[in-house]
């Protein structure tokens, strides 16, 4: 092909484009830079917030775990997040700030709970036998059929948010998955002053 022909084949938009065309990308760069800073300095998952960190880490919000502990009659018991609070728990996971976690804990503290069973599962084997071990909490929110005598209002609620951490083993292709505590907030009912604490060791 002659040089002239090749020149004609080149992009015919050699005229200048109005600089305004760069505005969307400038907004993108600004938002993405802010997201990177925020994700490195807070509990924001890299998957969210417009920085394009999806598929870069196992620490996706959907893999984060929210754990709830009630203090009832002087003893602390773990409970599964009630179905009614699934949405709030899901909204906590991407960026569990102390304030959001505390608000979530306070909502749980305001609920009335019932102990459905006398005993907790004693082993992993026992929980494996249950159809849905993750939601089979022994303390559940009060329902219309529950015995009013068994209803309790917790003295305190502790909410913890954990993120997954995966370490491949050097040989064999296996890997170890563990949870790393991102945040822990306790809200007490006595004087409604939260005894909140952010986990310093993990973040």
């Amino acid at each position: 092909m002659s040089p002239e022909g090749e020149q004609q084949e080149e992009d015919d938009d050699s005229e200048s484009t109005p600089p305004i065309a760069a505005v969307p990308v400038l907004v993108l760069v600004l938002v993405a830079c802010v997201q990177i800073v925020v994700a490195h300095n807070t509990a924001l998952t890299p998957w969210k917030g417009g920085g394009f960190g999806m598929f870069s880490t196992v620490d996706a919000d959907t893999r984060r775990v929210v754990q709830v502990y009630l203090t009832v009659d002087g003893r602390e018991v773990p409970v599964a997040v009630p179905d009614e609070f699934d949405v709030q728990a899901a909204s906590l996971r991407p960026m569990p700030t102390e304030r959001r976690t505390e608000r979530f804990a306070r909502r749980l503290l305001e609920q009335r709970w019932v102990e459905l069973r006398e005993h907790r599962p004693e082993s992993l084997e026992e929980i494996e036998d249950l159809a849905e071990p993750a939601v089979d909490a022994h303390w559940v929110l009060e329902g219309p059929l529950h015995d009013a005598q068994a209803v309790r209002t917790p003295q305190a609620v502790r909410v913890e948010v954990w993120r997954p951490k995966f370490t491949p083993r050097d040989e064999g292709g296996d890997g170890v998955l563990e949870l790393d505590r991102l945040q822990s907030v306790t809200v007490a009912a006595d004087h409604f002053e939260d005894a909140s604490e952010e986990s310093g060791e993990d973040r």
Partner: protein
Amino acid sequence: MIDAIRRRISSLERLRELPVEALCAMLTFLLVLLWANITWVIAFPIYVVAVAGILFPKLRTGPRVWCVLTALMALSLAWDWHHQDNHQFVYVYICLALFLAFHFEGKQRSRVLADGCRLLVGAMMAFAAGWKLMTADYSTGAFFHHELLVHESLSDLAVIFGGLSPEVPVENAANIELLTAGYLTAEPVESVVLEGTGEVAVIAAVVTWWTVLIEALIAALFLWPRRLGGGHRYVFYARHVALIAFMLMTYVFAPVIGFGWALVVLGLGCCAVRPTWFRPAYLVIVVLLLALRFITW
């Protein structure tokens, strides 16, 4: 006979000249309606604008319509930005690019749209590759290793090519359940072992570096300045071939259809200046994405 073939070819040639601006507008309205995660408070006006844009052709290229849609989408995003996936942000950037382009007429409009879309694709890919490179989870291969052992679609890859028994991903998922729900038992678990094979580790390394390389390549091609030869037709071809290859390979395993759709709009927008076969190719990809969505359902 030959004349009939020529006529058929000639009619196919017209596909190269599909109206990019109108198509981008239409696809974006559909994108907003189908895949945008909109805060319910302002969902109604957004849907009204999008439906009106689809029903009334004159509105499709009206800058005021796009100004309103951009503002509403941005407001919805700002409402709960930390919950939003990256492609939800991209929808707003696309609306903004269309708003700016529709301020102009003729060639200037095509140029503003093409350059706006080109820079957006380049920047998105640059940030995606950057995040991966600066995250230890990714650069050590741990991320894809983990996904190959537990992810619904990616574990198929591990089963087919990595010698992983089909039961293993199910067992791994059960182990994860024990880890996350174990605190409800008297014997909480601190860690679990996810079973894999040596081949899975190799596949993880290959997928890890392939992904970051293709993203970096797309970023380089789309951000290549015109004054340094970025306007050459071979660069143009390379851009679209790389982007289409990325979409075809990525969305089979990670069917994030909203992101794929957004990339189609951006890729199509990049073709605004010159007639090209990539215009119909992007429309075919939309159909494939929809088909893939129904298959994975």
